[in-house]
Structures are given as C-alpha cells and as structure tokens.
C-alpha cells in the first residue's frame, strides 16, 4: 500500500488567486476611480467555507435532538436511564484514534504541498488506517445495537432507548458520509487531483464526527 509520490499533485493552485469565480477572486479592490490593484486574495476556497457551513447545520440538528432529550428527560417520570453497552467505550477509542491517524496523513500531505518536503512520506498508509478505523467504529456501533436488541431493548422499549438509537444512528449515518469522503480523498490522491482544500475539509468533518461522538456519549451517559 505504501506509495511514494514522485511528482507534485496538481493541487497548489488553491492558494493562488484565480481569474473570476471558483476560488474567490479579488475583493473590494477596485476603488471608485476605477484603478485596479492586484492583491493576492486571502479568501478561503469554497470547500473550506462550505465545510463550516455544513458543520453548523449538523450542529443545529444535534442541538435540536439535544433539546428534545432534555425536555423529554426532565418532563416525564417514565425515563429509565439506560446503561450504555460497554463496547461503546472501545468505539470511542477507535474514533478518537482515527482522528490522530488522519491528522498524521493530512500533515504529511500538507507539508509536501507546501513545498517543505520533496515527496509525501507514506500518507496513503495513514489514510487507509483511518478508513479502517472508521469502518471499525461503524461495525462497533452495529454490534452495540445488536447487543441491545438481543436483550430485548428496542426502539420503543423506553424513551431513553429511543433517544439512544436516534442519536447513534444519526451519528453513524454522518460518519458513513465521512467514510465516503475519505474514499474520495484516497481516490483523488491516487489520481493526483487532490486539492488541499478537499483534504482539509474532509479532515475537519472527520474530527467533528469524533467530537460529536464524545459529546453524544456524555449526553447519553449522564442523567440530567
């Protein structure tokens, strides 16, 4: 799997101002007199902005779930607080670990793109490790659900289980989206068409999934 990249991928253009749209362009640079000043554009490429916008939206969704949980847990006497399946703690370690491995891959590619190194040092291996850990996490979540179901603890058993399934399934679906993103990064990397902004956006999304998971774990674990 180890690949040494010998030629620079076509990706550095991200940092340069491009003509017209695509990566921003010049802003506010044309004074009333009409004279043009060419100044390097500092605005981020769309993927960098877009990922923050998407994360804001995902945050709102989980905030809505959270407020529903708080209202529901606080308002009714029928809440039976659940014991989390122990495998979830293992999954937590896996998803946090995957953030580290992705960060290693990202830094290696970034250093290479920034011209610090002549070739990226085995970044692909770390990307594959990240992908495997991600798959392992999803598999671990599926095991957790199966374990609960085998104990007869289903969606409608108690409202605490309803929330558990809703939150973990919603999170797992978002993680699966991140896995798709990783596959895409790997394929673009192999085609030498990976952009720095794509890599950064995917890794931000992936880290966010890790943070979101820790948040959900605490939310489900503690009794308000």
């Amino acid at each position: 799997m180890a690949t040494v990249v010998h030629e620079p991928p076509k990706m550095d253009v991200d940092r340069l101002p491009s003509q017209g749209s695509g990566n921003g362009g010049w802003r506010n640079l044309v004074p009333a007199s009409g004279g043009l000043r060419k100044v390097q554009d500092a605005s981020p490429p769309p993927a960098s902005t877009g990922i923050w916008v998407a994360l804001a939206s995902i945050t709102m969704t989980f905030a809505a779930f959270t407020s529903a949980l708080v209202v529901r847990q606080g308002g009714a006497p029928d809440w039976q607080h659940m014991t989390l399946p122990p495998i979830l703690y293992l999954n937590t370690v896996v998803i946090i670990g995957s953030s580290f491995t992705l960060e290693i891959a990202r830094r290696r590619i970034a250093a290479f793109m920034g011209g610090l190194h002549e070739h990226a040092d085995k970044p692909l291996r770390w990307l594959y490790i990240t992908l495997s850990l991600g798959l392992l996490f999803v598999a671990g979540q599926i095991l957790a659900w199966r374990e609960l179901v085998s104990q007869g603890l289903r969606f409608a058993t108690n409202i605490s289980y309803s929330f558990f399934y809703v939150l973990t399934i919603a999170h797992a679906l978002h993680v699966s989206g991140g896995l798709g993103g990783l596959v895409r990064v790997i394929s673009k990397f192999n085609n030498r068409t990976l952009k720095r902004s794509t890599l950064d956006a995917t890794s931000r999304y992936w880290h966010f999934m890790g943070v979101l998971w820790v948040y959900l774990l605490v939310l489900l674990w503690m009794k308000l």
Partner: protein
Amino acid sequence: MHDMSAHAVHHGAPTSFIRKHIFSLDHKVIGKQYYALALVAVVVGMVLSWLMRLHLGFANFAIPGLHLLSKNGAPGDIMTPEYYLQLMTMHGTIMVFFVLTTAPFAAFGNFFLPIQTGAEDMPFPHFNMMSFWVTFTGFLFLVASFFVSDGPTLGGWTQYAPLSAVGAVSGPGQGTGVVLWAFSIAFFCVGQLFGSLNFITTTLDMRCKGMSLMRLPLSAWAWFITSIMGLTAFAVLMPAVILLILDHVAGTSFFVSSNLVINDQVLPHSGGSTLLWQHLFWFFGHPEVYIAIIPGMGIVSHILITNMRRPMLSHRVLIYSMGALAVLSYMVYGHHMFVSGMNPVSSLAFSFPTLVITIPSTIIVLIWLGSLYGSKLRINTASLFGLGFISMFISGGVSGFFLAQPSIDILLHATYFVVGHFHLVMAVAAIFGIFGGTYFWFPKMTGRMMNESLGKLHFWLTFVGAYLIFMPFHYLGIAGNVRRYQAFVDDYLIPLIPVHKFITVAALATGAVQLIFIYNLIYSRFWGAPAPDNPWQGTSLEWSTATPPPHNNFGDKMPVVYHDPYQYSVEGASSDFIMQTSPEPVHSADEEK
C-alpha cells in the same frame, strides 16, 4: 455532506438532453426547474383553495368530478368534513413549502445569485442538482398521499402532535397520510439544506473581482440572509419530523403522553411531551415565514430601484434591517403558543421581541417610502407588483400588532384574523414578489419579453382581488370566527356566512385571473418579442451578460465590478445609469461609504 470539492464548478457545457435539462448541474437550469416546480405546486394549491372556498361558502354545493379525487372524501361530489381538513392541510403544506419557499428563494435565488455575485456557477453543483431532485421527491411524496386509501393527512400544516403521532386511530389520513407528509417534509429539508449550503458559500467565496459584500444587490443580500435562516431552520425541522415518524411507525413516545384514550382504548404510549413538538415546529416555523418573505423584500427592492432610477436611501440600513428580522425571527416563535399551555411568563417574554420585530419591519417600509420620495418612478408590470407588495406588506404587517400581544391573542388566536394576517403579510406579499420577479427577470431567463398589457391587467385584477379576499378575513376573526372549521353549524357563526360567500366569489374570480398570467408565461416563452440584454436599463451584473446568459454566465470574459450596485441618476454621468461593470468614474458622496 462530506463532499466539499469545488472542482466541478468548471464543468463544461453539457450536450445530451438529460444532462442539459434534467440532471443539470447548471444553476440556471436548476433555478428554472425550481420555478417550474413552484408553478405546478401553486396550481395544485390554488385549486385546493378553490375547493375549500366553495365548501366554506356553499357547503352543499356539489363540485363536479370531486368524487374522482376521493370516493370517500366526496361522496356524490359533496365534500365531507374530514376531506375539507385534508385538502386544507395539503393547501397549507404545498403553499408554504413548495411555493413560498421554492419560488422566491430557491428558483430566483438559484438563477440570479451566482450571476449577481459574478460567479460562473455555485461551488457545489452536484449538491445543487440533488437539492432540486430531493425537493422534487418530497413533492411527489406529498402528492402521492392524495391517492392512498384514506387520503392525505388532516392535521394542518403545523401537524400538531399527538394528533399527528398516534396513527390512523385518530382519523382518516392520519395513518399513511401523515407518514407521507413527514417524509415529504424531511426530503424538503434535505433539499433546502443543500441549497442553503450552496447559497452561503457562493456569496462568501465566489464573488468576482471587485465585488465586495456591500456591492451585492439587495436581492443577493436577501437570498444570502434567507439561506442562513434556511440552514438553521430546516436543520431543526428535520430532526423534529424524524421523531414524529418514529412515534408514528416505531411506537416511540417523543410527543405522545401517557393514558390517552381513543375509542375507549388506552394508547400504548407513555410520557411524551405535546409541547415539545410545538416548540421544535415553531422554532422552524417562525423563521420559515421570514424565509418566505425576505427574498420578496430583496426582489422588490431590486425591481423598484431599477424603476425609480435611484438607489434606496440607504443600502446598508435595508441590509441590516433584513438581518435583524432574521435574528429576531428565532426569538419570537413562542407567539404562536400564547394559549398553548406554555408557561404564561414565557408568553410575555415572547411577546416583547415580537413587538420589537415591528421596528426593523417599519424601517424597511419607511426606507421604501422615503426612497419613492423624489424618485423618477417608471410604471411597468414589475414595478406595479413591487408597489403592490409594499401595500400588502403594510396591510398584513399592522395586524401583527394585535397578535404580538398575549392578552389580545386570547380573543384572536386560531380565528380568521390570524388567517387574514399571514395570508396578506407572507402569502400574498410573497406572491407579489414572485410575480414582480417574474415580469422583471423573465426576459433574462428566457430571452423573450412578457406581454406588458396582459401583465398590467393581471396586476389590477390580482391586486384588487387579493384585498377583497383577505381583508374580510380580519372582520371574521374579530367576530370570533374560528379557523379550520369546514362548516358553520347552528351557532354564533351563522351570521357570518354571507361574508364567507363573498370571500368565496372573490377567491374564485381572483384565482381565474391567474390564468392570464399562466397564458402570458407560456405565450411569451415561445412567441414573445426577443429581449435585449438590458431591457430595464439595470446596473447589476445580470444585465451585463447576454440574454439568456451563456453556460458559464459571462462567456469568455469574467466581470470586474467597479461600483456599488445601484448607480442610477448619478450627477455628471454620461447616462442615467452606470453599470457595475462600467469603469466610468463616479464622484458621489454615496460611493464607497
């Protein structure tokens, strides 16, 4: 939402029919698809309103052929009470989601936001394409519910739990109908989230050379602000409908409380919170009405500026006021719940920002009026609809003073006063924005002019007709007429039946008038006079490109922007307007402020 790459912006012009007109990545085609969807939806929604009005005015009137739509709902072509509620629910849902959100925001925004910012396309065209097709799938789900055995849901567009959550036992349409409704809304949310993502990123990152944020036209600002609202509001509605679906099909108890008895059977649910649904729904629902109206404000400002031949008194104040509306809209949603059983202290707390939100609304209206002062107003169909929008917005806005106060809401809650209020301020006003935008931008979108005489006829009949329909709603509400009733049985509402008959006649006539618009639209599309590039002598970027715009919007030469968006009647200039792309110097106190 992992796919963030921007490479597809530079997609070449497609050649096959399917990639060009159906699964197109081009924001202009997607904008037109949204417009077409809104047009189909508005026809369905309007026909439903005719059926409802016929029934309210003339309860025993047999509507020929209605039994074909639903055998149970209209035996002998006479509408049953539950079928009335089912049609009413569909009318509300179709209009709010698939017309008032799609047309002014998704349709015009998709077509013109990238052009007005000077971009070649949206940054994530695949998401943009999915945005439309997911929304369209949502529409199919909704329409499908007409054809399931017990018909569409009867729960109203607000779909209050537990009526919506306990299943078929609570009434016809509450089984499959509700599930289809909820899936439809979930799809719609996903579609609009994808759209909002593109709109925000386009505005922030895709502007052309020289296009600072303050140089964006007011319409672009309105779409930008709306997309931020969409991003947060739909992200809350989606989890809410997911929980609703689960209550419905998985037997969970998010919204259904314990010990509810229907047909002498105790329901199996326990402990759910009825008010939770209302909080989640209205946290989306109030921003939603601003999602419907803010694009209209932007479009109308844009149209009026072009036709007044002057910029608004203050570009910034209008932008800040629209922003203030957006922020406040999240803090006022509780005014829908004054008598809902929510803590009465919260009612007072929600009442205050609701009264405060009238301040930015008033500023916007006053800036419009102050800008009309001393202008050089041109009358054409687009500007007529723009002026009509202002009149409607004022009329619908002032009734908000009543509904913002919990004490008066005791009297007016759930009456026709509310129906009159929101129809004028958000439905009719927004539709005037859509009409104005259509007459104004049709030449750019299709390359042909619309017929002005038919357009003016359409305006006059619609303007007068809309007032004849919706003003009497307020009188009904003041007299205590409760909404969502399909018939007026032997009670205090009987004396109001003549008013209902009057509204019905006005609604049928005004509805029929819309055929003029549809005829004009279709005729002009194929046989209208060819449109020049800049028929209204506008200044913003959509008028500096060809008509209709080429695949990448600006052809070989990307625009460079030198000015604020609205340089009309500039002293000492060579003509009465200076386009944003014109390098002609402007020596004005307003420029670059």
